[in-house]
């Protein structure tokens, strides 16, 4: 009797597991397939518009050759985005750490008011400021073809407001570390650079990674600051123009190839540092 019951239990579990596997395989397929399609279509040469079939009738590298030819500014966009991402990831990480370290480690009179002000400011849509900043940047000549420094400036300047995740991490480091170092006669700056920063490696990598990836997908700011320019765009704003009404029939497969070229380095970097990303998300998102 008891034997029979446990038999049915294990049978039930096995069926449950099989169902789970089927669902997981289905989920994996759904999440992977669009990217497979994207890659397949980037090799399609018989037609450059949208088609309703997956497998190209004629395969070739024409779309990739197009990207590297003089017919398009793709390489310029790519270079722009890379420069922006490089600067932004260094400067933004620095800004966020300056902010989160002080808010986590120091207790001063204006601390709470400062945090409240940033909380309230965060409730305004970020794009609102863009209308003014565009006019100001235009006046000093950092828009259009010269959008790259303008974009870096705009992305970095207020990034102290995104301190939440790294502060959440810093809050978990025991304060006795600081106190011990102070007893040894270290200045607060030495504590920051020699004691705390080395312990922050995981969250530092997380911050650098996310701020490096940001500019690759930034459409809203880039499209405004580089308005009316062909060479000042980043990849997101640039590739977007290829999908416009009049462009798409000639450029859809170019878009696919461009997407692949953009995705590869970011993806490799991301998969390489995946561990830190997962730690940052699981640790930071909830505390944030």
């Amino acid at each position: 009797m008891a034997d029979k019951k446990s038999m049915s239990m294990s049978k039930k579990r096995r069926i449950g597991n099989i169902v789970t596997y089927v669902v997981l395989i289905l989920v994996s397929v759904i999440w992977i397939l669009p990217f497979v399609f994207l890659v397949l279509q980037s090799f399609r040469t018989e037609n450059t518009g949208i088609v309703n079939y997956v497998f190209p009738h004629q395969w070739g590298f024409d779309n990739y050759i197009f990207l590297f030819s003089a017919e398009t500014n793709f390489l310029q966009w790519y270079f722009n985005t890379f420069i922006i991402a490089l600067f932004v990831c260094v400067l933004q990480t620095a800004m966020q750490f300056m902010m989160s370290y002080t808010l986590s480690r120091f207790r001063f009179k204006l601390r709470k008011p400062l945090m409240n002000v940033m909380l309230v400011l965060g409730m305004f849509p970020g794009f609102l400021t863009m209308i003014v900043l565009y006019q100001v940047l235009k006046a000093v000549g950092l828009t259009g073809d010269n959008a790259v420094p303008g974009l870096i400036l705009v992305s970095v300047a207020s990034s102290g407001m995104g301190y939440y995740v790294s502060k959440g991490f810093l809050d978990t480091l025991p304060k006795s570390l600081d106190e011990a170092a102070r007893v040894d006669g270290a200045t607060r700056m030495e504590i920051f650079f020699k004691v705390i920063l080395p312990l922050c490696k995981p969250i530092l990598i997380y911050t650098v990674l996310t701020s490096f990836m940001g500019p690759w997908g930034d459409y809203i700011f880039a499209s405004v600051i580089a308005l009316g320019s062909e060479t000042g765009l980043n990849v997101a704003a640039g590739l977007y123009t290829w999908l416009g009404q009049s462009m798409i029939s000639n450029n859809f497969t170019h878009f696919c190839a461009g997407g692949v070229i953009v995705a590869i380095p970011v993806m490799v970097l991301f998969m390489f540092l995946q561990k830190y990303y997962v730690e940052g998300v699981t640790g930071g998102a909830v505390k944030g």
Partner: protein
Amino acid sequence: MANTNELELLKKTKLQRMGINFVAFFKSIPTKIKNLGLSIWGALKKFFWGIVNFFKFIGVTFVKGDWKTKVSYFIMGFGSIFRGQWLRGILFLLFEVVFILYMVLLGGGYFSKLYILGTQETITLDDGTKIQGDQSFSILLYGVLTIFFIAALIYTWYLNIKQNKIAEEIIKEEKKLETAKDDLRAMVDKNFHKTLLSLPTLGIVIFTILPIFFMVLIAFTDYDKQHATLFGWVGLDNFKQLFTWTAGGKSFSATFGQILLWTLVWAFFATFTNYFLGMLVAMLINKKGIKMKKLWRTILVFSIAIPQFISILYVSQMFATDGLINGLFGTIAGWFGNHNFQPIDFWGDPMLARITVIIINIWIGVPYLMLVVTGILMNIPADLYESANIDGANAWQQYSKITLPYMLFITGPYLLTSFTGNMNNFNVIYLLTGGGPINTEMYGDAGSTDLLITWLYSLAVSDSDYKFAAVIGIMVFIVVSVISLVVYNLIPSTKNEEEFQ
């Protein structure tokens, strides 16, 4: 008292508890308003006495101070320099010089025009020479900048006087004054937080506070395409237009109402579909006996690794009338003998477009949620499940009695931020539909999937309708802050940050 209340609350079912919290929240509104009133009154009183003390301090210090202090009232930093604290002194002096130069060269002229924002149009004379007229944008911008500058000057001036007083007292007590070298050392030690904060806060003031202040002012002007160079104050006119209900006929108020409603509906579905499906996927992967957990997770994480704009733009094309999805449907219809399959216009029909957007958003958001949830799932004490197993609870009971309450408790604040984040989710909507399909009934050719934020974008970028863009921005702020305030008071897991240290 509080404890007995909580105990009684625990006896109730979940729904009752939520109801009680809900009622308690609204019951507490009068007391909260009273408290708010009291604290505002308190703040006003404090402010008033602050001003009185400020002037008293300045007067007394001037009368009692020595000649160096007295000169410092006019030449900032004078006293500090002559008492050997030259670093502070020079900084004070420098600020004063910069301020005076700014006011003389730029700010003063613009500031004086701030109250009507300029009247003189640019005229071209017969011989082709141009007489540059007023530019309201510059007047307002420099005007705002000047206000900030003046506030900063008053504060520094006060600091400068305070420095003098402190220095005098130290000299009287015959102690040593802090030298410039001490100041420099304090920058990396005692005042290190000020050093660290200076750059990020300066960035926030210039690139966020100033522009927001400016845009709030724009909402009270008539700055748009017709008034691009010269615009003026119109008081509350724009807000009046927002609240006077006129049905149909491209009215601003009706459009705003519709878009706000859709924004809330979208934020609700986008948040909760992602949340529950993400949780489901995480639980499937975490299930006992499932192998290759890492592989499944990596496959989903893979889709985060690809820059979002690529996947969103590509998927939006998959759903085009001549795209892959319709191709697939056509093939399937062919198998069933229907060779005249009419492609579905996913982006053409308002309702269908809205549903499609929510479904695609699941595809975009679930991997991220899966990561967030996985971390929390692993923290649920395993013995809870073991004892539930012994008691014979089935999977659904375990989920609804253990997993879900725990998750909701921990992720309450996260759900709130992701709700408000979705309200402002520009990328997904704009890159998928561009806000379309365009609804010609609506103001400024807004579309059926437009969120407030994408509408704001197109009003500002394509229509140059800045005044209404500013109004929408303010309204978004009000809606987000009200929702945050209400929900934050309702959820139980609002915790004290010091608890973790």
